[in-house]
């Protein structure tokens, strides 16, 4: 399902949350990365027909989000960042209710509910009250409701926060599998969540600063990532001067990955950048450019 954003702008009073965003998503699994407050959730909510843009145009599968929201909702599965259910209903009752709201034909309802419960590993909890579920289980129920109705577009906003590592992997695999038939739009600030995406965009302070594949994003840090080993007493000086991507203690020394265009230390080793290195490079580059512009 194709998603087209043209000059998408959203203002909250004087605050501009999205600033003339242009993006085209052609299907598959697409990740939207960005720091907190970048405008990811605003964009997700606009795509999920919950918010109206201030300006610009958004089309999903050829439907205009402003005028044809109802047509989009028929094809949409959405999992917001913050959600809940009726705590007094049982898991299967809640899903059956949602299945009715999603217009799933009566003869397919039970089967679909069972399928999504199976998919999110909640079959054993089907007869538990929603209010009695743990945070992780509730998150999985959220995913289950989004999957109901086999939507053409899945919009998932910060989905893995409440999941344990095993569930997180299971969820990623599920999304990867779903993305073969469904467009999956995944918004997150956890870079590892988007490693399986076919496309990526990075949003920062309301602006789109990168669009490409995960490999492209990682490549943005090519020749910029260095590994150094620093005695612990010198670490604070290194930390002050360079962007630190990761650290670990190795034989009493701090082994660190640094982001910089030149070798930071004489014994610094250039290394192959990871996805998150590319992400940090893009964000930092954007901040630098903004700083120059403002100066």
């Amino acid at each position, binding site marked *: 399902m194709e998603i087209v954003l043209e000059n998408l702008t959203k203002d909250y009073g004087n605050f501009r949350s999205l600033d003339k965003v242009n993006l085209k998503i052609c299907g598959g699994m697409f990740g939207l990365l960005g720091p907190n407050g970048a405008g990811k959730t605003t964009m997700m909510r606009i795509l999920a027909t919950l918010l109206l843009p201030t300006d610009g145009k958004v089309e999903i599968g050829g439907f205009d989000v402003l005028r044809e*929201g109802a047509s989009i909702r028929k094809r949409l599965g959405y999992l917001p960042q*913050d959600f809940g259910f009726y705590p007094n209903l049982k898991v299967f009752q809640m899903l059956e*209710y949602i299945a009715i*709201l999603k217009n799933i034909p009566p003869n397919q309802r039970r089967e679909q509910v069972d399928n999504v419960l199976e998919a999110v590993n909640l079959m054993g909890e089907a007869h538990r009250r929603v209010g009695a579920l743990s945070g992780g289980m509730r998150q999985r129920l959220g995913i289950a409701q989004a999957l109901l109705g086999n939507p053409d577009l899945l919009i998932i906003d910060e989905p893995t926060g409440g999941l344990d590592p095993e569930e997180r992997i299971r969820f990623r695999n599920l999304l990867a599998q779903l993305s073969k038939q469904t467009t999956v739009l995944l918004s997150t600030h956890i870079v590892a969540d988007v490693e399986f995406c076919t496309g990526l965009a990075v949003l920062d302070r309301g602006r789109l600063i990168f669009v490409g594949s995960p490999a492209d994003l990682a490549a943005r840090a090519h020749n910029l990532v260095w590994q150094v080993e620093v005695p612990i007493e010198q670490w604070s000086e290194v930390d002050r001067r360079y962007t630190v991507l990761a650290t670990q203690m190795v034989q009493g020394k701090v082994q660190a990955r640094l982001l910089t265009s030149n070798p930071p230390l004489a014994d610094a080793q250039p290394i192959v950048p990871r996805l998150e290195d590319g992400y940090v490079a893009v964000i930092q580059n954007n901040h630098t450019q903004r700083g120059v512009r403002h100066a």
Partner: protein
Amino acid sequence: MPNSIFHRLLASFRIELRLILFNWVYPLLHLLWGILFYQLFVGKDDRSAIALLETTVGRLAIGLISLIGLFLAGISASRSKRVRFLELEETYPTGFEIIAGRWTAGFVALLLFLTEPILIAAKQGPLTSLLEGLPVFLFEAGLTVAFVTVLAWVVLFGQTFDRWAYMILAAFWLSFLLGPSLLVTHFPPASLLNFMRQGVSFYSDVWGRMVYGDQPIWFNLFYVGMLLFCLGLLILAVYKRRFHHLSRPAVLLLLGGLILAGWGGTRYINTVLQAVDSQPQVDLLSSDSADLGVEDYHLVLDLADPSVPRFQVTVEVSNTGEQPLDQLIFRLNRSFSITKSNFQTERKGNLIFINLSERLLPGESQFVILSYEGPLRVERVSRGVVEATDFIDSRGIRLTPLAEWYPIPALSNSAFGQHEPAHFSIQVVNNPGLPLAANLPAIGENVFEADQVTWVFLVASPRLKIEQIDKVILITARSDLEKGRELADDYSRALRSITPFFPDANVHGMILMVLGEESGLPDYTPPVSGYPLVVTQRYAKRSWSTPDTWQTFVTRTITVDLWQMEGGKLDSRYNRPLTSLDQAFDALVSFLSLYHRENGNLDRMLAGMKSPENLSGSAIIDENLQILVEIYREGGQEAIVSVLQKMLLQSDELQELPYDALPIWFRSAWTTL
């Protein structure tokens, strides 16, 4: 598509209903609700089922359900947001049907609170009364609940709903509970704001809502309009939020609701304002007809067109003074226009001046013949609610003396609507099938006639029941029939016991009107010749603490009428003689009550005289009673009749007599006869 919308509506309805009903607060509320109604009404309000639903039970239920409705609607409207389901819910391909389903569920849950009031009304019975009242009650309670809940939805939809909002809802409810009551003193139509219908506490089992005319229709129409208007607003709000455009059906609904509300509201306000403007005006007399006596009335009421009733009356008048009369002045309701007369007439408000062609000399009499017609509906405004006291229409008739519906000599010092005792006959022709009754005995179909008539009360209603029970003519509402029969039985037995003591009263029977309200009737409802008259309510018996006090009341009521029928005078303020005559009368009532209670058995009467009931009065009364019982022991019923005759003959002497001389007077009254 409509099928799937219906399925979603149904699913939303079922889920919401389940969430409401299975919450522990709901059954607890029902339990408290049931206890409240049981405590307040069971065995304490003896009105019929329909009257309970129309007044106390029904009004309390509607008022309180409105409050619960506001809270419940608040809970329903905020539920999805409260549990953070809203964000999900609004991405589903749904429309107004989800809100409609939830609202309907709340509405149904609230309607279940009508069960307790209906059960109490059912317990009260009779079943016919319940069945008659139920549809209107359900409709009006439903309309109120629907309006209140949809209003709450409109206010709360899409809003951040914190706990303090419940306080605002409670304040809203309280302001509409008290506000209209305060406003109606300055602007009576403000009663329209009383959506909880707390303004009306009066209900007539005989005439039902006839008393209120079209007022309830306009009131309901206004709130049907408001309901549609609010529904339209809610749909618009949903469409604006979900689809970002206007819904044409919602706009039509909104406009339609506005038109209906405007129409109903305007008509309601006009109705009240007209009633306020038409409050009875009294035209003062510069001179009155003090010397004008009436001997005979012959009245024909033609109901061929009940909206414009036609009257023809022949009045025999006499000059009771010492000066010749050349003009007669009568009072007649200003709604009537005189169409024909055998004398020249002039009209000034509710006064008619009849200019005689020849002077009426002292002691002479003359026939005045008048034809008049016009619609009659006398209304008063009570707490912003219009209530008719007198009316004639195809659905019923209520004519009290206060309406001045037949010509009455205009005397500046007489009680309105009453006249000197006269022979009176009234015939109703072209009756559209309404059962008719009056405080006069019927001598044929739709014909009533009696002597010594000082006032006439004519009633008709499809709900009216007239039954002859022994000598008692019972006139009551269908729903009060059982209670009326019980009262008729008590009065009948008392009448049979007491009548022999009043041989000159010439009793042919008794008229017992169990009507439930007496507005517009003269104090103590004087009887006509041969027929003691009691106008009372179905719950009259319950208001007496013991059967004996009730029997004493019945005895007194009948005695008062029999006393008058024998020519005895009563003080108009207290409906009994004063001074020693008062004491003698009380003693007589006590004796007759004792006699009636003990079936004239002397031994039991002697024992009963010492009962706490009879000892509760003053010693003087006890002594008087004792003397009367002794006289009865010595001379039987005839002796008492003799004493009574002397009381009637020597009333003036008794008024001057010291209280302590009364026992001796009783003794002498018998022995000297």
